[in-house]
């Protein structure tokens, strides 16, 4: 047990836990004022329900047993948790992984803004976190996972978290349909400073998300931290340059969105790349994710706060280009990508891993959402959507004069 490694992983667990409130403010500022509490509540509630489910069952499915696809119940209720090769207490590993399980379903709320019944949302994330997230996490993070074994690299969850949540968001939106008035009624963000507070917390917490995944205070963690910051910086610049060219202005929301896109893209690569790679991966992600904003218009899907463009596309971009930029000599772990003499084998594995998680999550999420929609209904009643989730779901209003 190394106290230095433990100190960093404990701090990282706290940092990742802080990201879910950060995500709540990031999304909360972007919705209309009559829906801000609905959005904050959905994210805060995930910290409650998903944490309990993860302790009772989720951790065990992801890290219990030796099966490549689904875990067993050995670690249910976190009883006598054990995990090979750790220099930190098992509970520190449990805590760190728990915070990942919490934020992943919360990411979906951006796409389904303003129109989910709270009870149905709660039921969805309960099922989703056990049936979709836990297995996907196993495949990618757990050395026994079948994607891990195939040689696919994912340092901090590009696939299991961002591609997974991004495609699930698309699936749920396909089930519940668009916001009423989408396309003709203007729905600009109600409080961009609140979104900036969320951006600051997400960027701050992401150091724990990526550099904490080294599970120790070592050179890999240091390189991952630098990679994370440089990718966010380069992606901000990439997004702003394209935005300036297309619309004539670099926007504050654009700078924040670009930074988050960079953070998403570097997530799978953080501990496997070095040198100028984070600048290229980040810059590329900023440009690609901005252009991906059009996808939802093409698909005629009201992905309200662009979870597809930022998380699905950002996650896919990062996971796949890792097959090009991976450089084992940068941190001493991982493998070599195409540009570093590794041939295209890793690239192929990355595409397979991304595709596998994407297809599994698309199908499973669609089925879960459809099942709930057909039974108790996921979408709020028109009158409830008109007065806003704050009032209809929580009998509150966010602001008083």
């Amino acid at each position: 047990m190394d106290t230095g490694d433990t100190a960093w992983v404990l701090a990282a667990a706290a940092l990742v836990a802080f990201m879910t409130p950060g995500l709540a403010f990031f999304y909360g500022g972007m919705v209309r004022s009559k829906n801000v509490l609905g959005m904050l509540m959905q994210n805060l509630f995930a910290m409650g329900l998903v944490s309990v489910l993860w302790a009772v069952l989720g951790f065990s499915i992801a890290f219990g047993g030796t099966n490549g696809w689904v875990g067993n119940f050995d670690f249910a209720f976190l009883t006598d948790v054990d995990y090979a090769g750790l220099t930190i207490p098992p509970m520190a590993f449990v805590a760190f992984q728990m915070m990942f399980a919490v934020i992943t379903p919360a990411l979906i709320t951006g796409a389904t803004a303003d129109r989910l019944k709270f009870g149905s949302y709660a039921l969805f994330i309960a099922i989703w976190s056990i049936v979709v997230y836990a297995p996907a996490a196993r495949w990618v993070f757990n050395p026994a996972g079948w994607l891990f074994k195939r040689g696919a690299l994912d340092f901090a969850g590009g696939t299991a978290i961002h591609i997974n949540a991004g495609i699930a968001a698309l699936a749920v939106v396909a089930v519940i349909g668009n916001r009423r008035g989408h396309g003709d009624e203007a729905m600009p963000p109600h409080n961009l400073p609140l979104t900036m507070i969320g951006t600051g917390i997400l960027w701050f917490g992401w150091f724990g998300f990526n550099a904490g995944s080294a599970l120790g205070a070592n050179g890999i963690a240091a390189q991952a931290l630098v990679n994370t910051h440089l990718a966010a910086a380069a992606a901000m610049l990439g997004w702003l340059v394209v935005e300036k060219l297309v619309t004539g202005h670099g926007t504050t929301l654009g700078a924040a969105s670009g930074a988050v896109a960079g953070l998403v893209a570097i997530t799978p690569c953080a501990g496997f790349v070095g040198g100028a790679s984070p600048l290229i991966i980040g810059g590329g992600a900023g440009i690609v994710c901005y252009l991906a904003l059009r996808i939802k218009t093409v698909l005629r899907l009201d992905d309200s706060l662009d979870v597809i463009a930022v998380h699905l596309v950002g996650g896919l971009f990062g996971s796949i280009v890792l097959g090009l930029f991976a450089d084992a000599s940068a941190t001493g772990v991982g493998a070599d990508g195409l540009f570093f003499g590794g041939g295209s084998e890793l690239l192929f594995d990355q595409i397979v891993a991304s595709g596998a998680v994407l297809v599994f999550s698309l199908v499973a999420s669609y089925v879960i959402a459809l099942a709930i929609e057909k039974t108790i209904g996921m979408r709020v009643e028109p009158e409830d959507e008109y007065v806003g989730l704050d009032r209809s779901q929580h009998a509150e209003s966010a602001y008083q004069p």
Partner: protein
Amino acid sequence: MKLITAVIKPFKLDDVKDALKAAGIAGITVGEVRGFGRQGGHTETYRGAEYQIDFVPKVCLQIVADDAQADLVVDTITATAATGKIGDGKIWVTDVERVVRIRTGEEGTDAL
């Protein structure tokens, strides 16, 4: 000249503005208000304490128009702002003795 004051549902503002623009109305002044009428309020609960909120968010338009246009303004708003559900709002018209455009000092219809 007449002052037409209309209290309508907030999400109808853009439609009403476009309709008035199309009808040739040159200017509108709009304020955020809260209304209380037949449309009942709702209760909000904070830490178990229930609050009866009677006021509903509305938007209040003020349009100064020529006598000739007054009825057109009223009819345009009534047509566009109505949803048929309770709380659609009210319009009232008052007589205006004098109108001045601050920039030029023009008065009367030239000021509109």
